[in-house]
């Protein structure tokens, strides 16, 4: 079956521009997560969607970052007025929250964002 897909795979933008990153989770996975990994750093949690519940936005670094999940499936992460420090790999993951191995998150290949 299809895994988590993300688009675009690479994005180069100019400082101050807005960007949108897309994530298609695995069908049937109710949970969706966004992370970012800056060069040489670990995975930084950004936002978590679970079903129809209000998203957990506690990881968003600033109000320039926002995310939506339409119809409980596809998600879009938007970064407004991009800054050079936003350059990172943005990873999306999905899972079927529950017990044990259902907690396993399946990651997409990531979107590599470079802000010039």
């Amino acid at each position, binding site marked *: 079956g299809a895994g*988590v897909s993300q688009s675009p795979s690479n994005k180069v933008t100019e400082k101050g521009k807005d960007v949108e990153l897309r994530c298609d989770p695995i069908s049937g996975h109710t*949970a969706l*997560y966004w*992370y970012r990994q800056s060069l040489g*750093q*670990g*995975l930084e*949690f950004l936002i*978590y969607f*679970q079903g129809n519940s209000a998203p*957990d936005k506690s990881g968003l670094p600033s109000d320039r970052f926002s995310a939506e999940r339409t119809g409980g499936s596809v998600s879009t992460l938007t970064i407004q007025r991009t800054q050079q420090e936003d350059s990172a790999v943005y*990873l999306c*993951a999905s*899972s079927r*929250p*529950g017990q*044990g*191995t259902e*907690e*396993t*998150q*399946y*990651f*997409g*290949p*990531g979107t590599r964002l470079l802000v010039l």
Partner: protein
Amino acid sequence: DQQVKQNSPSLSVQEGRISILNCDYTNSMFDYFLWYKKYPAEGPTFLISISSIKDKNEDGRFTVFLNKSAKHLSLHIVPSQPGDSAVYFCAALYNTNAGKSTFGDGTTLTVKP
């Protein structure tokens, strides 16, 4: 305050030997732990997990050990193979915060032929 720490940013071992990757955590509420493996230009992939009710879980060449009193877990790979060269992330979560894993910074493993 980093709740999950991987204190060794890198590890180099010889092919055929054992690789031991370590992870420490501070939140005693964590009750489920996972290891992910990440190759360059790819997303992390799930490797192995362990529940807090166990102290060991084994899957082929991979074994995860959990020491709850020390808040420490380790991933053992034996024998190590060059294809194991990757970044390994430790992650932890607890049921009341279901789904929101906390990740360590990762350890880059290099297995030399």
